[in-house]
């Protein structure tokens, strides 16, 4: 268990069996009263953000969390299959846990999988991935403006806004946290 004085930004805690991440943390003492710790916390299972106030005397749950590096292997149509880098253990992860990041996964990509009580709850991809454009309107040659965009489709079906000079077959870098175009890596 944690005590309230252990609380800090980034600490992972557990409330009623649910793991949370502390996003913001604020010490506060009313008048002559006891110390309080006002926190903004994010539910690690569904991403929801709520406010929670802890008292000095509260005992706060410590979640059983483990982060493991794993390689993406394949999608069997129902689950995403990952291989543990060191033990070669195979882990099946539900599509709900992978979420929209499925569009940026590629075979052999190393990701960080967070386990809560032995169950995978989130995966973290590298911040940037390189993807090939499979479909877009022909590029406007010489137009290097980046503030005008068009839609382009990745091999995973994901649609991303790209500058006009991007062509089919180009490799681009995408920010996996925002799902946005970052830069062109190579031309076809």
């Amino acid at each position, binding site marked *: 268990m944690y005590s309230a*004085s252990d609380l800090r930004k980034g600490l992972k805690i557990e409330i009623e069996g649910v793991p949370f991440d502390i996003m913001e943390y*604020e*010490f*506060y*003492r*009313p*008048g*002559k*009263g*006891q*110390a*309080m710790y*006002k926190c903004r916390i994010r539910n690690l299972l569904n991403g929801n953000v709520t406010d929670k*106030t802890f*008292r*000095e*005397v509260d005992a706060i749950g410590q979640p059983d969390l483990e982060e493991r590096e794993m390689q993406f292997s394949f999608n069997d149509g129902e689950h995403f299959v990952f291989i543990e880098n060191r033990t070669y253990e195979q882990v099946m992860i539900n599509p709900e846990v992978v979420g929209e990041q499925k569009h940026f996964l590629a075979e052999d990509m190393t990701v960080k999988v967070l386990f809560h009580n032995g169950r995978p709850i989130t995966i973290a991809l590298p911040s940037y991935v390189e993807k090939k454009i499979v479909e877009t309107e022909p590029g406007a040659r010489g137009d290097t403006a980046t503030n005008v965009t068009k839609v382009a489709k990745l091999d995973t079906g994901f649609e991303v806004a790209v500058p006009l000079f991007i062509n089919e077959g180009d490799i681009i870098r995408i920010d996996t946290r925002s799902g946005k175009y970052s830069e062109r890596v190579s031309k076809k």
Partner: protein
Amino acid sequence: MESQDGQQPLPASASSVAAPPPPASALAPFLPVLELRSRVLQALRGWFIEHGFIEVETPVRLATPALELHLDAEPAGDHFLRTSPELHMKRLLAAGAARIFQLGPCFRRGERGRLHNPEYTMLEWYRANATYADILLDTKRLILAVARAVRGTTDLRYQGRPLLLAPVWERLTVAQAFIQYAGWDPVRNYDAARFDFDLVDKVEPKLPREVPVILTDYPVAAAALSRRKPGQPEVAERWELYLAGIEIANAYSELTDPAEQRARFEDHARQRAARGKPAYPLDEEFLADLAHMPPAGGIALGVDRLVMILADLATLSDLLPFRE
């Protein structure tokens, strides 16, 4: 040209070359804030002098800090740094002082946040033969005078919202506020575990922000050093001032009964020991003098928070240049 006394004139180039600009200092942005703070301190002192108060200074190092359940004093050698000048100022009242004020540093161990710093400036003032109602009148006049002196108006804005210091100060009893915002009455059924929590979690966030708010008449269990209300002994004559939802000051009709004061100190000492917190020795000189203290009203006001609001700053980090 040679001067009369034989000194060489300075080379012409020395005066025409500007001094190199000082290196950019992280402290520079605080200079306007310090200037405003200086004017607040002058306005505060001016108001008290004008109203017949004398400024006093009492020890910062104490052998016996006030025993309060939740306040931890910072150790300083074989003494402690004061959490408040309250006990010494009351001894001056017992000695016959009629109107006294003090501006100076106080210390609370481990307090650090947007609205807390382990070292801060406290303003305390006391009136003999007065109650918390008299102190409320002082406070209104003082706050308005300071706002006019440093901002030229009592219609302020704080963090994008209006804060109208005049004419109305909203008054809510603690019972009213808790029934309305937390759904229970701490005066009828005090619950120590819930009181502070609901105050912070449910009541304070709902208090009106556009006008000053007085939260008054605390349950006796949260009386601290205030007396019971005559004719309504289940509440204590204590109020707190909130500006823009931020707690600024804490006022009492002071407890002058040495037996009840001793019992409260001993109760706090027992509860602190039970929680593994240091218990400080009783201040016997204070308890002896309390028997001679006239009825009095007194208040402690956080000067840093007041300046923070007058300067429209979001956090003490924007106010204090040398914050750790």
